[in-house]
């Protein structure tokens, strides 16, 4: 994004510093406060290299300025992050941009604004205990390979421990 375009983006929004406090209630949702916008996170970011729309520095800037309507929605650019952590390697301020993006994703989910796939896949863990389910085919293949059978998963224990206190 050119600096002109960035200035326009900033101008059309109202600053919302209360957003920082709200994001701060999620794990790692404070680390963007260390950012001084150097842009070291951008050059080796795979999503940035293959898409002009994705820029981790701007995501952090939007989090700092509180552009909630751009960040907290199912089609926000945050969902294009590849979780590769290259930005975390480059950042001189230990912002850990991926972790801030994950805090933003957690906020989306808690407000019902995450892509459906997130709920769909993570609910599978709560129903079956795993993300990729056992099938009769996988059981047969395990047998053919001489692997021990899968003994099932303690789903009840997971349900108990994820309840907030």
């Amino acid at each position, binding site marked *: 994004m050119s600096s002109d375009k960035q200035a326009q983006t900033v101008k059309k929004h109202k600053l919302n510093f209360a957003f920082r406090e709200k994001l701060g209630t*999620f*794990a*790692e949702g404070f680390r963007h406060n260390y950012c001084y916008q150097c842009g070291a996170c951008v050059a080796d970011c*795979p*999503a940035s290299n*293959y*898409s002009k729309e*994705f820029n981790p520095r701007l995501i952090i800037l939007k989090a700092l300025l509180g552009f909630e309507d751009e960040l907290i929605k199912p089609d926000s650019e945050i*969902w*294009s*992050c*590849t*979780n*590769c*952590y*290259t930005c*975390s*390697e480059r950042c001189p301020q230990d912002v*850990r941009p*991926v972790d801030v993006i*994950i*805090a933003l*994703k*957690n906020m*989306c*989910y*808690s407000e019902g604004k*995450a892509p459906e*796939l*997130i*709920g769909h*896949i*993570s609910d599978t*863990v709560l129903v079956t*205990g*795993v*993300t*990729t*389910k*056992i*099938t009769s085919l*996988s059981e047969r*293949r*395990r047998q053919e*390979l*001489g*692997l*021990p059978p*899968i003994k099932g*998963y*303690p*789903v009840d*224990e*997971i349900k*108990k*421990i*994820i*309840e*907030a*206190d």
Partner: protein
Amino acid sequence: MTYKSIGKYIPFFGCMMTTKYPWFEAAVRKTAAKIGMELIDIDGFTCCPDPIYYQARDKMEWYTIAARNISLAEDLGYDLITTCSGCTATLSEVNLALKEDPGLKAKVNERLKKIGREFKGSINVRHAVTVIRDDFGFEQVTKTVTRPLEGLKVAVHYGCHLLKPSRVMRVDDPNHPTILENLLKAIGAEPIHHDKTMLCCGKACMSDAIPEQMIMDILETIKSREADCMGLICPTCFDQFDIRQIILGRKHKKKLDVPIIYYFQLLGLAQGLNTKDVGLQMHKVKADQIFEKVLA
């Protein structure tokens, strides 16, 4: 809990490998035994849970479910070893986060108390390749080889979560790693490090276009370097490059034909196992042929 001796490990194969790619698990079990790793299976593991979808849902839940898995291994006091980079990412990060932050550990333990468990922070989580390098050494790998894969050019794909975040993983230089190259050399293969070696598989990215271009770029680079196959250590990366290569090849009308092979399958072949023992015939991009030259 005292830290026990090197040599015994609790394997965490995760859900993708055990259900979708069980031949990878078979390859790990067969090859690890020859190197001298004793795997002690325990019951009760669940999903790690995955670092993409579950972590995006609720990080506190994610910490808690992972901590429960780690606590099962702590009961025995052996390190937990992973064979999938997704499981490595989740379990390593949670293990370190809880060891570093007593407040977080207390919150998680409050939840674990409901099922009579506790995270203590007494063991390590390590990917199996790290265990081989650090506890056995590359020479020990070579000693198990009966059929060196001489002449086989393997394009290295690190994937992200063996190395990064390096603050958590502490395995190798995250920009200039050597562990996989050395493991390939140890079995007689020729590692090919190309300019897309360190690129991601794109699985976590929810855009269609970004991973598609990344995958095509990586596979075309490998093809231009005349490598025989790609070698990797993660079933999620495998999913992206094997089955998706067929889909993308059709879409772009390109014949890529880059076989994708899990490191422990290569190790198995070098140790004398046949291609069926390690499930090579199950791959979508046919991988059997390239071994004709080494198995001849």
